[in-house]
């Protein structure tokens, strides 16, 4: 069976984008996963770019596809779980969808670093911390044992671990959650990656530690001119730490654009509902929180129209019949997948520059 449809595509045309060549260029990316009830459309036609030195936040609730997207890009999903994978994902000079497991392994930990939510399960419990840090240093950079150890201690220092020489000899269980997450970050940074993928890096941590970890990530990203994908469910956190944001719902993109534009003037009703539904520290205290009626759609079935249609207060027949393309609506500074976008914020309609040529191909949008 052709489990991995990863025929290398021809390199995309250099886009008419003004900026430099993006570090990561994902187009029409789909991942369907096997499940007992049939294929789950976990990632459904997603396109985005990410330039070096920038942070893209991917936000959405559980099941929105944000983690599957990032994991599948790096080949971290078990091949047997994947029913369909199509589209292209260009990372610097490589087409990720066409890479062998061996080449993906060479990429992970070297050119792409990863930080996961739960450092306890991501770290090896029976290996002292320095040896875990030394592994990629020796494997990818060819350092000797001694040099790798010295470098490991240096890295622990970089990520703000006090008394790094002593800590290097410890095992993960001897550390607090925040400390372990710092070790995870050190591990992700060992080989000076071009891209850091942080999947809910602070969800398991206390707010005071969360703030420290995010500042650390911000600083490291800036110093190393790394690109970062920050996967999160917390819109306030995203507002503080991301340049761009991609909101996902049911495996699809709901909105994509500069963080300010998306979060201060969301146009897709789902994004707006998501912003309204969380109690905020600085908002007026309301008696009741606005809620989103209904439940997320069954991803084993294809929605012909918009995936949010059944829960959307604005939806009409047009939303049911055809999938909305991700385009820049009049008056917006970002792209929105909605046929009936919410009225734009009272900004003067700036001369709207269409997004990067390509994006989501409208003509294919409604194919079942």
């Amino acid at each position, binding site marked *: 069976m052709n489990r991995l449809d990863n025929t290398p595509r021809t390199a995309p045309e250099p886009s008419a984008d003004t900026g430099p060549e993006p570090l990561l260029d994902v187009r029409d990316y789909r991942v369907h996963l096997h499940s007992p009830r049939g294929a789950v459309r976990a990632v459904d036609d997603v396109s985005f770019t990410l330039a070096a030195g920038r942070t893209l936040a991917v936000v959405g609730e559980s099941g929105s596809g944000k983690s599957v997207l990032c994991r599948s890009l790096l080949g971290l999903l078990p091949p047997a779980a994947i029913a369909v994978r199509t589209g292209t994902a260009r990372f610097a000079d490589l087409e990720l969808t066409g890479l062998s497991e061996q080449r993906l392994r060479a990429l992970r930990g070297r050119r792409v670093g990863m930080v996961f939510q739960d450092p306890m399960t991501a770290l090896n419990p029976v290996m002292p911390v320095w040896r875990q840090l030394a592994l990629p240093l020796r494997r990818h950079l060819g350092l000797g044992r001694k040099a790798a150890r010295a470098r490991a201690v240096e890295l622990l220092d970089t990520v703000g671990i006090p008394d790094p020489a002593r800590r290097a000899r410890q095992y993960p269980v001897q550390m607090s959650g925040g*400390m372990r997450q710092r070790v995870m970050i050190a591990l992700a940074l060992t080989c000076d990656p071009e891209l850091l993928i942080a999947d809910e890096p602070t969800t398991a941590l206390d707010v*005071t530690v969360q703030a420290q970890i995010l500042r650390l990530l911000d600083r490291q990203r800036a110093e190393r001119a790394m690109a970062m994908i920050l996967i999160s469910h917390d819109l306030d956190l995203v*507002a*503080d730490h991301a340049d761009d944001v991609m909101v996902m719902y049911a495996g699809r993109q709901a909105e994509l654009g500069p963080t300010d534009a998306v979060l201060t003037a969301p146009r897709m009703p789902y994004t707006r*509902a998501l912003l309204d539904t969380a109690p905020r*520290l600085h908002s007026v205290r309301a008696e009741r929180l606005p809620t989103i009626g209904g439940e997320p759609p069954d991803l084993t079935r294809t929605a012909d129209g918009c995936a949010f249609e059944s829960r959307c207060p604005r939806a009409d027949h047009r939303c049911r019949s055809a999938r909305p393309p991700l385009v820049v609506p009049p008056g917006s500074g970002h792209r929105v997948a909605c046929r009936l976008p919410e009225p734009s914020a009272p900004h003067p309609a700036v001369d709207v520059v269409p997004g990067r040529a390509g994006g989501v191909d409208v003509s294919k949008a409604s194919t079942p």
Partner: protein
Amino acid sequence: MSSIDTPDRTRPQHDTDGETGADRALLTVRDLRVRYRNAGRLFEAVAGVDLTVQAGETLGLVGESGCGKSTVARAVARLESSISGRIEFDGEDVARLRGKALDPYRRRVGMVFQDPIASLNPRRRIRDIIATPLELAGDTDRARIADRVGELADQVGLRTALLDRRPHELSGGQCQRVSIARALARVPDLLLCDEIVSALDVSVQAQVLNLLLDIRDRRHLAMLFISHDLSVVRHVSDRVAVMYLGRLCEEAPVDDLYAAPAHPYTRALLASVPGRGANTQGHGLLTGELPSPIEPPGGCRFRTRCPLARERCAVEEPQPVQVRPHHRVACHFPLGTQIDAERVSREAVGS
């Protein structure tokens, strides 16, 4: 102060909100201490906490993991074995009761936990899970139990079709509704909620919070609402208490606490919450991590991370003082007070 004390403790259906019993202390906790043993050494996870919850009031309890906030709830529910201090419920010290003598109290206190799926027995049907407390209360009339289960399911917005399913067939939000229904089965006066929305997506969190607040208001329930999420606590609470390393550092009406925190720890907690770019600047953020509760720092427990700590903080443990009406803080140099102003001016002169 003496209000209707139902002698047999079996409360009638609580739909008469006539006497709201304003300022009637339903729960009064005094000098609560909970000891744990770690590697042969005893330590206090809760080291002398005083709390009061009025009838119908929601007290929020916040703090970082390991501060003892869940232990407080478990001690109040009498789920901890090694406790000392007083836990007065409706005038009676329930900390001394043992075994069967606790039954009338347990009937009046419900508890909902964080993990919606793990806190439900995976082998039982939802219907039976909700019925359990009724059966434990000695009800044997099957038809009456079935009616009551249907009623409770309706109250928490569970479709009847779900009652014959098992927990793994339900979503996290639905499981949390089941937990709430179970906690409400015996018509409690006090609900202990321990991180009940932490595992839920924001949209589901909103539904569960709305449900909880509806029921609270309709039944005039008092709540001890524990969460690490300061925004959620602000949304549900009338008053908020802040814990650090087994002790209370501050307690105040919700708006006063969030607008003008008097303890440096509270201020740091609030500054850490993302949003409005507050924490990108790094102002008021804490450095270091929570010390071990096994060997807490002497004097003020917060002094090792406190940006304002002075010598006095190392030698003398601060006792709670009232800085504004109903606003108590355990700090030698509470923010926004005369003492604080003197400190600031002294430092300005000194530099």
